[in-house]
């Protein structure tokens, strides 16, 4: 667990350094294109792991987080790297807050997705009675479910804040972006609602976290694509 934490921590420091340099050159928050947005999401996932990992003491969380962060980084690197250049217009602080806080919420959703995968792996082994080596290293089901719930709340809360701040941007946003952002909010709202109203068993909540994050990433693509003209 310590090794995982140190490894993710080192990666987080490098990501922070990259975003800092990039932001300095741009003169604003470095989320102006898909390449930067994906790196920002990967950074947010690592941030949540760094903050939440030790608090929840979930063993192997780092071992599951690291591959997702690497995958996101590789996806970003496969995209054309746009050279940073200073925008002609001065930065809109509300737009920057709206975009960055929404992406930090994605970090929480990413970690909820990881906890969901861990839950599904553990649950599957318990149901089939086939216990593999990983069974003894993964955390208990109830701990994982508690972590999923908390991460969903963190993500939903931050995302709501991000959406609400969008009303103060002071300029019209593309309707596709508004629809996509609202769809993600409704999706996670329904997962939380279903969890508390007993619509879904824990296993389904875990599965929905995985489906939800995949859908949210796809919609993020759409949001970023249509939002190129409204770069913060």
């Amino acid at each position, binding site marked *: 667990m310590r090794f995982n934490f140190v490894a993710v921590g080192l990666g987080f420091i490098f990501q922070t350094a990259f975003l800092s340099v990039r932001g300095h050159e741009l003169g604003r928050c470095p989320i102006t294109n898909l390449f930067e947005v994906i790196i920002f999401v990967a950074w947010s996932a690592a941030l949540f792991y760094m903050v939440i990992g030790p608090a929840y003491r979930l063993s192997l969380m780092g071992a599951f987080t690291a591959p997702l962060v690497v995958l996101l980084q590789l996806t970003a690197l496969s995209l054309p790297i746009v050279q940073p250049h200073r925008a002609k217009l001065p930065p809109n602080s509300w737009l920057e807050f709206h975009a960055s806080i929404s992406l930090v919420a994605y970090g929480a959703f990413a970690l909820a997705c990881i906890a969901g995968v861990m839950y599904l792996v*553990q649950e599957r082994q*318990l*149901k089939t*009675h086939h*216990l593999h*080596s990983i*069974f*003894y290293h*993964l*955390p*208990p*089901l*109830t*701990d994982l*479910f508690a972590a999923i719930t908390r991460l969903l709340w963190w993500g939903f809360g931050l995302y709501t804040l991000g959406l609400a701040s969008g009303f103060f941007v002071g300029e019209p946003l593309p309707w596709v972006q508004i629809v996509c952002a609202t769809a993600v909010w409704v999706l996670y709202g329904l997962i939380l609602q279903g*969890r508390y109203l*007993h619509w*879904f*068993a*824990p*296993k*389904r909540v875990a599965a929905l976290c995985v489906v939800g994050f995949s859908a949210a990433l796809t919609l993020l693509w759409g949001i970023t694509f249509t939002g190129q003209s409204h770069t913060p």
Partner: protein
Amino acid sequence: MNLFCVGLSHHNADVETLERFGGNVEIDCLLKNSGCAEALLLATCNRVEVYGASEARISTLEVARCLDRRIDPPSLGYGAASSHVSSESAPFYRYEGEQCVRHLFRVGCGIDSMVIGETEILGQVKKAYEAARSNGSAGRYLHRLFQRAFRVAKYVRTHTEITRGAVSVGSVAVDLAQKIFGNLPTCKVLVIGAGETSEKTARALVSRGVCDLRISNRSGERAENLAQLTTARVVPFETWSNECREVDILITSTSSEAPLLSRMKLEPMLRERIDRPLFIIDIAVPRNVDPDVDALDAVYLYDIDSLQSIAEQSLATRREQIAAAEQIIAQHVAEFDESIGRGLSRLAQVSEHPQVDETSLRPSES
């Protein structure tokens, strides 16, 4: 200095022999009468071993006589023993030098135990060492040897899966409960049936901190008895099913021919507790819980076969890990021999039992 180990274990001695040589031992007699510089006694229910360090060679018979309960230690006479095994005929094994080091490392790691990889033995070795250290019978040679043995045991546990999984039905059930609920003290447990197996499982759960234990049985008297033994609460047999709404772990072991719990009966109760898992341990034969119950969300049903299968799987995994553990031990034995125990190998050549199998190190007879 000659390091040696003389002993008996479950490999080559029956319980009677172990009892005879294991209790009430005067380790001082080894030090005083035999000219042994250092001596340490390890006596558990499965083994009696004396580890010693001496300039002169101490014979196995001398050690055996010191361990023999039927001989008055000061006299060290021959006439008192009348059991089927005497000090002379007891199947003592003897390891010297490098072989002694290797044997202790194997014992500490649990490779030589009846249940491979059990961890209790390390605590017993530590206790024996502490006792010898406090009474002054263990000196610098045994100190180095045992400290190294503790390090090796820790390393083997960390770097192999020799201790992985539980190997008895009761401990498998407890392990599974921990992997579902994490914190057992907050779990509510209902035991239906007051038989021996349910008592063992209930006791195992109580030993891991379960506080809320409820017992239900057709015979109220037996339920009361078990409840007293395990500080549990008795639930009338007619109303046990209502408890399913709030319990986390359900243990069934009644002699009922028909299933007590079916999917149809359980499903409505689960709607009120969908976000809380229910772990059902059905140790009855024939089974008390309909297997269809396992298809329900958040219900984990394990019968006696599945628990036994997991226990066997764990044991098989532990056996597979022996080779890896032996490799680690071999490295540490070589290092110990090189850095601390120079000359041990030379002394091993004058071992009383040179026929000891290097690969298995199974006990050789005296």
